[in-house]
């Protein structure tokens, strides 16, 4: 920002005061200390500049992907594709292994997420709805394993899967991904299940439901949104992973992320198709992410703020 800093205490022109007051009130929690009109203009400018800077790389990948090949490698980059084309996307789809790796990625991700959801839900039910000796220990395990840098386990995992003949197989990777997303799944679902009032369980039990019926008719339906959010997060994790699959499997058994990596190392970089491939690979993740973003933020810091 180059504009001279406004004195925060400068009084706002009289005509704008009522409007500003109302707006300030409708935003809950807005910090009203030092509000002034110039200050707001400055803040808005800063906010817009920040957003534009943040978005620039996103814009640049889109810009590149829709350019014809000669424009991608121009010494004077064009900031708006003058003749937008889908060539890069077509050549990405036609590139060797692109479709195969896409299918692999879908299979591996779905297997991992489905498995983690079933196993994780049962585990979450256990620590959220029962009190028993050892519950704390399970919670501790679930928390600790989330922090182990998974990459450091890659060496023994590789050796284990190698001796079980599960390297270069989609099954080996699926199981690995399942375990990778399992602790988070348990932890998040635990939060959703404990959010369901126990009184509901008890009322149902008194009305003559069995434990199994309580599960099927009350807990499961009420955890529905949580299951969706958790599985979407698991999907993102598994879809985005590339180091494990790149280490364990050969290129025809890898996923799209690993494909993006191969694309850079083997030949010189074909930037246009690479950026187009990057967009195709990101689309499901970005869409899913935007749907569930609230849960991701709260899951990581749950309870740190009362809200």
């Amino acid at each position, binding site marked *: 920002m180059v504009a001279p800093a406004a004195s*925060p205490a400068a009084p706002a022109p009289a005509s704008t005061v009522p409007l500003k007051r109302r707006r300030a009130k409708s935003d809950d*929690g*807005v*910090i009203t*200390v030092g509000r002034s009109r110039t200050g*707001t203009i400055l*803040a*808005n400018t*800063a*906010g*817009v500049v920040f*957003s534009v800077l*943040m*978005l620039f*790389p996103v814009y*640049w990948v889109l810009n590149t992907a829709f350019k014809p090949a000669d424009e991608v*490698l121009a010494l004077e980059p064009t900031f708006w594709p003058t003749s937008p084309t889908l060539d890069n996307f077509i050549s990405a789809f036609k590139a060797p292994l692109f479709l195969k790796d896409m299918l692999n990625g879908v299979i591996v991700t779905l297997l991992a997420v489905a498995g983690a959801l079933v*196993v994780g839900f049962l*585990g979450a039910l256990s*620590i959220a709805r*029962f*009190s028993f000796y050892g*519950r704390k220990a399970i919670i*501790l395990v679930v928390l600790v*394993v989330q922090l182990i*840098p998974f990459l*450091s*386990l890659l*060496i*023994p995992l590789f*050796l*284990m899967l190698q001796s079980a003949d599960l390297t270069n197989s989609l099954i080996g990777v699926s*199981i690995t991904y399942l375990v990778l997303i*399992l602790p988070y799944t*348990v932890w998040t679902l*635990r*939060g959703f299940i404990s959010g369901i009032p126990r009184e509901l369980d008890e009322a149902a039990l008194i009305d*003559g*439901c*069995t*434990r*199994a*019926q309580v599960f099927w008719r009350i807990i499961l339906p009420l955890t529905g949104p949580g299951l969706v959010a958790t599985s979407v997060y698991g999907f993102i994790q598994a879809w985005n992973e590339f180091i494990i699959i790149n*280490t364990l499997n050969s290129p025809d058994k890898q996923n799209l*992320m690993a494909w*993006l*990596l191969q694309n*850079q*190392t083997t030949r010189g970089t074909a*930037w246009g198709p690479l950026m187009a491939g990057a967009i195709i*690979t*990101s689309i499901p993740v970005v869409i899913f992410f*935007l749907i569930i*973003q609230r849960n991701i*933020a709260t899951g*990581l*810091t749950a*309870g*740190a*703020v009362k809200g």
Partner: protein
Amino acid sequence: MSVVDSPATRRPSDPGRSRPNRPGHAAPKRRPRGSGRTPWLLALPALLLIAGLLGYPLVRMVVLSFQNMRLRELLSGRTPPWVGFDQYTRVLSDNVFWAVVGRTVAFTFVSVLISVLVGLGIALLMRRVSRGVRLFMVVAMMFVWALPQLVAAQIFRWMTDSDFGVVNYLIDKLPGVDYQNHSWFVNPWQGWSVITTLVVWAGIPFLAITLNAGLTQVPKELLEAATVDGATPWQALRNIILPILKPLIMIVTTLSVIWNFGLFTQAWVLRDGHPEPQFQTLATYSYTQAFGQSRYSLGSAIAVITVLLMLGVMIFYIRQMFRIGEVD
């Protein structure tokens, strides 16, 4: 959730009751619940998977670091020879390793510091801007946050490409600067500023949006009272907002430390999968030793040391989360 009251209060009403529905099906299941076998049965699959694919590898990693596993042992399947602390002596007496440690620590410190400060600044800014601008900021950050790490790294690699990168083009436009064909990774300081920019850029959305959510919880009355009492915005920030926000800042900082300390993808991708010595971090170093040089045991020793270095931060985070997990 209260740990004490649940089974005790529910059990008496339970066994004596007659169930109208499927008594034969439900009865045998019901009995062991009170004795506490059901929760273990429910948790069993998850525990087995975690034990088998996280716990056992963890043990194996430690064991491996006391052996000497090379390509020959891998291919023949023979038990690698025990070498005691040899791998550790080798690693710890290696100047290259200490350079990697120093670099990783320095990077973590700088990148977390910048990320948290900028994130906090943006969070405060979000409270100050008009509604439309705030929405724009959230949308912009959401897109950045949603991008896969690998894709983000590829975009930065493309933008800083020495021949056709837009960054060189834009900097070259500045008067008196010649950045044509400038290579960003010849000078490690420049290379690391690209990596740090990428990490900070990708990390801001989580920090800013989380901290902003925290800021909405700061009671407005407190701030109004402070204004009435003549507090400057800076004083309000220091004496009201930051103390209230402190637990959240601690947690996001801890998470950022854990994430950035494990830096792999960004350095790996920006250096085309072959990071030069000056761009190695602990994670890439362990990986290259194991999978590039087939020194699986040496790589494991480095991984063990990495985990040990992180232990303090991890314990702190777990204690915070554990406290929360008990409360609700």
